[in-house]
């Protein structure tokens, strides 16, 4: 049988063809609804930023854009404003709270999931969720009245034994230890423990049983399983949970305003009385502010808004990166 010569036309390089996409009416309506919801949320974020920016202009003009972010003063009578110290204070308080909260939250999450008996697990889970929903003023009052005294003791101990670490030093030997960034940070930590616990607990509970059993069947201890299987599995989610907590700590207002001895200058002595944050500035100054001071407070709010936005974007980037690595 004679072979026909191959048809050159047929051997031409193929290109992807069009695929007909028919969209049903229901789909179209639903898509429109979803798209409008997305548009609304974008509008809210954009609108907030725009509103803050416009209202902030007078104060920023008076104080000077650069000096607003590089000095630490708050003098409404002459229109001199600068929030550097408060930005630093915000980060100090949020960092203290993370250092206290993260080990507590992850330990609690692991205890609930891995070690506690079923009945206690249910009780703990619902109390954590309850705490997450607790208004922050409650924590603030509790911190003010009940926690200060014991925490002052802790602060004195830290200063006595760990003053090799710069953070635990005092400006002078008998500096007052009440109403410090350390105490505020610890109270804020208690407020963010629930959210970090509940998110990381959920994430680690997703770990396939077969993975955990594989680890135990190899002769692994509980801790070995946690270290080699659960934590690597939950890494991205836990990072997200921690940053979520950090975001909350940055914005926490009432508890900070209630407890801290407010100063606009940054106070590097974490254990010592005095400190501040942007959110507490707004809460403390707003009731009596007028004209230019209101504009300055809004400018400070804008600074907090951008900081929180960056933390969240950073959180996302980190979560995405760890997800790819896993």
């Amino acid at each position: 049988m004679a072979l026909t010569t191959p048809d050159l036309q047929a051997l031409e390089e193929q290109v992807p063809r069009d695929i007909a996409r028919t969209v049903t009416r229901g789909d179209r309506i639903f898509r429109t609804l979803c798209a409008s919801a997305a548009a609304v949320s974008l509008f809210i974020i954009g609108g907030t930023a725009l509103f803050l920016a416009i209202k902030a202009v007078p104060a920023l003009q008076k104080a000077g854009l650069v000096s607003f972010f590089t000095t630490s003063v708050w003098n409404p009578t002459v229109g001199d404003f600068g929030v550097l110290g408060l930005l630093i204070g915000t980060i100090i308080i949020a960092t203290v709270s993370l250092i206290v909260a993260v080990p507590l939250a992850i330990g609690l999450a692991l205890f609930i999931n891995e070690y506690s008996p079923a009945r206690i697990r249910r009780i703990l889970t619902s109390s954590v969720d309850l705490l997450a929903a607790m208004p922050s003023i409650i924590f603030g009052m509790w911190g003010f009245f009940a926690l200060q005294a014991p925490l002052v003791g802790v602060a004195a101990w830290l200063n006595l034994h760990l003053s090799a670490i710069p953070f635990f030093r005092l400006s002078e030997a008998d500096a007052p230890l009440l109403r410090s960034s350390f105490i505020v940070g610890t109270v804020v930590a208690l407020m963010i423990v629930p959210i970090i616990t509940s998110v990381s607990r959920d994430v680690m509970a997703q770990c396939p049983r077969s993975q955990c059993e594989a680890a135990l069947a190899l002769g692994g201890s509980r801790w070995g399983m946690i270290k080699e299987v659960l934590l690597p599995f939950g890494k991205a989610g836990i990072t997200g949970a921690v940053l979520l907590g950090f975001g909350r700590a940055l914005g926490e207002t009432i508890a900070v305003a209630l407890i801290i001895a407010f100063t606009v200058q940054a106070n590097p002595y974490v254990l010592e009385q005095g400190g501040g944050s942007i959110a507490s500035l707004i809460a403390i100054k707003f009731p009596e502010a007028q004209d230019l001071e209101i504009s300055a407070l809004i400018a400070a709010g804008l600074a907090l808004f951008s900081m929180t936005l960056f933390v969240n974007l950073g959180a996302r980037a980190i979560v995405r990166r760890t997800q790819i690595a896993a």
Partner: protein
Amino acid sequence: MTTVESPRTAADTATNRQVVSSELLAEEPHGSSRIDATDVTCWFGKRKVLERCSLSMEPGKVTALIGPSGCGKSTFLRSLNRMHELVPVAAIAGTIELDGVDIYSEEMSPTEVRSRIGMVFQKPNPFPAMSIADNVLAGLGLSGMSHEDPKALVEQCLRRAGLWAEVSDRLDEGGMSLSGGQQQRLCIARALAVHPDVLLMDEPCSALDPISTRVIEQTIRELCEEITIVIVTHNMQQAQRVSDTCAFFLVESIGDPGRIVEAGPTAQVFENPSDPRTYDYVTGQFG
């Protein structure tokens, strides 16, 4: 039956971290062990799923557990290395002795039991975040052991699991990049790395194609010279091909616990069973 068995709580005794000297992990595996299960009864909550099962698993032999679905083969297998107690409501009665030592007694911790009695699961479950080599070594890190020449151990275990030739040039790739059959052999290699005396396998080939199945069966035959193997299988031909001893489990009527109907040399169980129910099952005339 008048005697009442009381469930013993399979409490996790304190997990002693073993420090295994490198001699124990040296090239030559130590002689294999025997397991003697006596009157094993298992509960999930109030429900008794297995009653008075006694079976001896001889050193260096392959024991196959067969029987219809739900008759308690997996439960029995998991009771042999204290995986049963991981289910919160689980309870067990009877004794299981590894070379004469009761594995549920104070004399052994669960971690020690599990590193001496390894397990391969029905679904391949390599650790997804680890490379092939790290998967093999995972058991060492998990149980706090160390090995002076990890590279050599990886090669040795992969060779014994019949996987070395296929992966020797890609040890750093993720464990999930392998095919299902290769993943299962990786899991076997991982179990071998902690030098178990016994290897339990729960339907290790049920998710695999005939060729991968053959490779694993061959691996089992090679391993059984050094390690005691207990395998659950639904495949009658496989039980005949790989096992020396065979135990037939059965739930007689719905709601009853599973029992061992017959156990003995594989050839006898398949060719000349003493119980008519065994005959029906192995000849495929069941139900």
